């Protein structure tokens, strides 16, 4: 993979249209989503490189906002590759994950409760009190 050939300047323009700086959050390019974290994305998602390279060639010199709008409208597959790569890279950045309060898919063992909360506080009681809600097997089929 010839990373050096990727037009990161053009990519940064597009990426910051998708994820701009706002609400205390960095823009995509500020967060490394077009540099080191993008490299990480392309390491595990080689399939994204070719469409990314293609759309960057077509976008060179164009107005980034207009180009993002055009891609979304006319080239949905290319837009999907761009948005996946950029957002995927953005969310790999630990600082971004910290800012949005997302620690990853953590291992949180189930704490056995006896009795479980829905029995302790009676949450299930009204369902039980209402009784069966199914239609029984007709007598003609019970043999």
């Amino acid at each position, binding site marked *: 993979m010839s990373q050096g050939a990727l037009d990161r300047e053009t990519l940064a323009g597009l990426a910051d249209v998708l994820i701009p700086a706002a609400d205390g959050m960095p823009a995509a390019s500020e967060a490394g989503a077009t540099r080191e974290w993008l490299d990480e994305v392309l390491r595990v998602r080689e399939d994204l490189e070719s469409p990314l390279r293609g759309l960057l060639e077509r976008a060179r010199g164009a107005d980034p906002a207009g180009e993002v709008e055009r891609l979304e409208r006319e080239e949905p597959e290319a837009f999907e590759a761009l948005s996946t790569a950029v957002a995927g890279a953005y969310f790999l950045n630990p600082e971004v994950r910290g800012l949005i309060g997302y620690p990853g*898919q*953590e291992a949180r*063992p189930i704490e056995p409760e006896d009795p479980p*909360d829905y029995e302790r506080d009676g949450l299930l009681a009204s369902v039980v009190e*209402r009784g069966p809600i199914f239609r029984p097997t007709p007598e003609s089929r019970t043999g």
Partner: protein
Amino acid sequence: MPDPDVLIVGAGPSGAVTAKRLAEDGFKVTVLEQGDWPDYGRARAPHPDYELTSGQYWAWDPNVRRGPGDYPIDESESDIIALMWNGVGGGTVVFAAHWQRNMPSDFCVRTLDGVGDDWPLSYEELEPYYVRVERDWGVSGLANDTAFPPGEGPPMAPVPLAPMGRRVARAHNELGWHWWPAPNAIATRSYGALKPCVQRATCLWACADGAKASVDRTYWPANTSNGVELITRARVRRLLVRADGLVDGAEYLDADGREHVQRAPVTILCANGIGTPRLLLLSDDGGLANSSGLVGKRLMLHPFGTVTGLFDEQLESWQGVWGQHIHSLEFYETDEARGFVRGAKWGLQPTGGPLSMTRPYPWGAENAVWGEGFHRELRRRLGHSAMWGIIAEDLPEESNLVALDPEARDDYGIPGAKVVYTNSENSQRMMAFHQERAKESLLAAGAYDVIVAPFIDATGWHILGTCKMGDDPASSVVDPWGRTHDVPNLYVFDGSTWPTSSGMNPTATIAAMALRFTEHLIEQRRDQKGPG
């Protein structure tokens, strides 16, 4: 090697249950599986790149995945794309583990609602088999759900309700609607080969933690220890048919394309609702066991919808089980005043991590996050959302079908499958009704906004009905015990046999039916016809 007593094609759930029970009774069993063992080294749930990578190796669509066990499926004339895992474990490797028994009415749809067909058995007849496979499988849940006849429940306590489940449960209590702690094929404590769930909510892309009861974990290692011969990368090209009409095993190709013949006095197809009819249509010069003309027809795929609620409360809804925390069967039974017959099941699920918050599904392309409002919208969704997954019963129609693809072939030159399926008017009305009720559910639970997902085609996890079971050879492919009417030593034990689809996730019933079929085959062994 001497020939086995029984040849099984397919190492998914029905093949697993069948092989286990046969081996327990001393049968010598060989299983041909076209795919390989799943590589859990590629289950990335604990890693930061999980959301980026999970849809690659673990993709549900074989046309996307193109794994070693996959064959092409032409879906250009289908409203729904068939999803599957072609390898040891079958669909259970990537299923959501929703373990739903069918309800009593599912077995008598014709009698009760005047549509479809009755099954040749009742809920009460199948109930003991549910209980047994739930123990074998490793299922968690709570007995005496009011949507089912009372009786013995699963062996493990249910997964926690989670904050989202408690909210919605309270709302349903206020509405007077059914809910229940959901049944899942997920271990909530150490259980046989399973470890307790750690609630990463990544069940749909293989469980990296060994807690989801997929049969590659719960059945196949024990089956092979018990003498079952499991041959992977064995792609069956056709079943062998003798001059007297009996089946004499199968011809298959190994990973290198070398041809092999595996003979057996009894052959059982467990290759799913597309793979099984495909094999029958590939055999005997244009169709085996097809005097009814129904092989491949009556395909049912369960139209699927989701409704997502947005909440102020932090629910950490990227965690939990996926899986379902609670389920509701409030609107499962027919009420003709609604403008359709039959119903749907709801399962309450997480919504995923941050990358999932940016996808067109289930959020809708019109609600795209990109641009100025990106961070605000992400914060609205991430951790603050809960989703009802809605599985709608579709009725059997002969125009919905699986055929051989006249053009596409797999890597070994075997014709692929072609699926023709139209989402019916009844199904569309049903889904629209259920989506409206699901919106009411989430709003009552405190959601300040609800989003109905756009219809997408990539939801065909449940592939049913293509070798209908029944008493009459003119209107069914197999008899009530899974034996083909036309060929007395050929059986179908998978979901192909379903006369109607129910509105439930089907694995529980596929497993229970496979056990029931198998025990009947064992009981009838002295009368079994076979070559030699």
